[in-house]
């Protein structure tokens, strides 16, 4: 029972990060109908930027709280510029090109970002500086530490904030209008290019925060971390119903739970044949199962080829 509770806690924390990244996929998909393959790499860049800034700020003797805030801000800014540039350079010129074209440029962007990151930050793992005493709390026999609590609460707060932006502001209304019908939105005077740019920047800012959270909770960052994370977050978005914001959040949390419970119990179920080293496989099977049985996801609408 304690193991079960522990896996639930781990899964929810991990899942809240997946949800943040999944939101980036789903927002872009909702508006452009495009899978932004490079999104996982934006998360990675965010983590690396934040980590570099944090290390050098702490090295300069900045107080930890200030250093943390500054480095998050810097990472968000950097990722917003990155997200904006990716859309301008690799997607916008191809908006009316055959479908395959932006997919291929997206792959190109991922490869470029990954290798640039490797050149800048090297192949090694970078560790997250220990800044605050990371207290552990026991909770019904399971352990939860401060970082996990912060990550989970912050992720929920950001998601709530995003919902407010999308449903209560002019910008959010414009975003929803563009997602619903680009042509009509344009006729109504919405500047589509601006809305698309802002969507990419918003998604990238979320990615930066998610990147920081991931590296804080694992204590590590690495140039290759964006790939699997991106794949899983995409799975989360599909599980929830791609294009649907609530779906991305639900999908993220669910995928986190599935992974952590799966990894915790797969040994018992298969008589020890498969171990927790297969953890990364679950997301993929979830993706296949969803695509077979409910391609529209849990909260999504019908997802057939648009005419």
């Amino acid at each position, binding site marked *: 029972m304690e193991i079960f509770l522990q896996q639930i806690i781990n899964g929810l924390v991990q899942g809240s990060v997946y949800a943040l990244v999944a939101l980036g996929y789903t927002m872009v998909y909702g508006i452009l109908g495009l899978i932004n393959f490079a999104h996982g790499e934006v998360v990675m860049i965010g983590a690396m930027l934040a980590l570099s800034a944090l290390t050098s700020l702490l090295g300069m003797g900045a107080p930890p709280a200030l250093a943390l805030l500054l480095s998050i801000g810097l990472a968000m800014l950097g990722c917003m510029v990155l997200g904006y540039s990716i859309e301008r350079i690799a997607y916008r010129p*191809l908006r009316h*090109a*055959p479908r395959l074209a932006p997919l291929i440029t997206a*792959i190109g962007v991922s490869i470029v970002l990954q290798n*640039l990151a490797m050149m800048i930050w090297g192949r090694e793992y970078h560790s997250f500086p220990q800044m605050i005493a990371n207290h552990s709390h026991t909770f019904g026999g399971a352990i939860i530490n401060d970082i996990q609590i912060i990550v989970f609460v912050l992720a929920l707060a950001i998601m709530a904030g995003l919902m407010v932006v999308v449903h209560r502001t002019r910008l959010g209304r414009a975003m929803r209008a563009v997602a619903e019908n680009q042509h009509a939105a344009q006729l109504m005077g919405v500047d589509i290019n601006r809305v698309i740019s802002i969507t990419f920047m918003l998604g990238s800012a979320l990615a930066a925060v998610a990147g920081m959270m991931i590296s804080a909770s694992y204590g590590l960052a690495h140039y290759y971390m964006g790939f699997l994370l991106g794949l899983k977050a995409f*799975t989360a978005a599909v599980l929830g119903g791609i294009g649907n914001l609530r779906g991305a959040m639900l999908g993220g949390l669910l995928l986190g739970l599935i992974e952590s419970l799966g990894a915790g119990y797969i040994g018992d179920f298969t008589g020890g044949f498969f171990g927790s080293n297969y953890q990364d496989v679950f997301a993929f099977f979830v993706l296949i199962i969803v695509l077979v049985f409910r391609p529209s996801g849990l909260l999504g609408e019908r997802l057939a080829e648009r005419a």
Partner: protein
Amino acid sequence: MKHTTIFSKMKFKPNPRSLLIALTIALLLLPFITDALLGRGWVRIVDFAMLYIMLALGLNIVVGYAGLLDLGYIAFFAVGAYCYALTGSPHLALAFPVAFPDGVHLSFWIVLPLAALLAGGFGVLLGAPTLRLRGDYLAIVTLGFGEIIRIFLNNLNAPINLTNGPQGISRIDAVNVAGAPLSATQNILGISFPSVHLYYYLFLAFTALVIFVSQRLEKSRIGRAWMAIREDEIAASAMGINTRDLKLLAFAMGAMFGGASGALFAGFQGFVSPESFSLMESIMVLCMVVLGGMGNIAGVILGGILLAVLPEVLRHSVVPMQQALFGKIIVDPESLRMLLFGGALIVMMLYRPAGLLPSRVRRRELGSDEVAEKA
């Protein structure tokens, strides 16, 4: 632009047959020439280039003809490679000492079709649920599949040692042709053929076969239907094309080519490990297809040659250049290569989506316009 002129000159050569004969002779002499001019190591590089061309031509059916983005193509290559690694090496003796005390040693020529079928089967399993959805899903599912296969290959060494994990499987039997193993130097008609030369001819024959199959498919009812799907899936289905079945066919055929190439790879190298089947390899093969020109056989071959030789060129130029300039290595050739690949994908799509070589149709159209003007 240079390619265009060479190509148009080739087109108006009075006798294409003599050109073909000259090309065949050049290809037959190539390993000896390479050996004499550049050394034996380069013959090996040429062998690998041929493997890549086979892979690229297989992927071309999927991406170039049917317009489906397969980002895990190397996984089918892996399936084929491990298929032969397991059934043509002593390895299985570790897992099943009683049943196979010496491992399994099936003939390569029996395993080859099985490897192709197995890879094709995986293709169907993967394609059936995804191909009824939009193309992007196929891309991401294949991407995931490529990773999953690697995770399994890395971890299926315990509790039963099937794949030997990250260490990979070694001592794979060489390919035998007419009873002679290609791993040893053979004397034929008084000429001595080293192993790399022998494999070159084997690969040359297979490449020719793949080109033949691609060409026949391209100019057939099936090929036209694939291209219709690539151009406009809705219009294709309105014309009575069963898009799902035909996409599945393209996907499975591409996978079969990948599987067959994988078996060849395992026999040639005598060793396989999960490292050879990373995402980057999939990207590299995709790059070959995109660079040369999707759907264009000559272009894909050109792309394959360029990209297979590029790493060697980089290794021989970038490292000494940096040593000379900075006294140390700042950018390692491997990441520079990947950076170039990624950049090439973006630049090609933005500025030259039809690839380096002008496509068949374009050429034909230019030709026919000229004829029309003369008339």
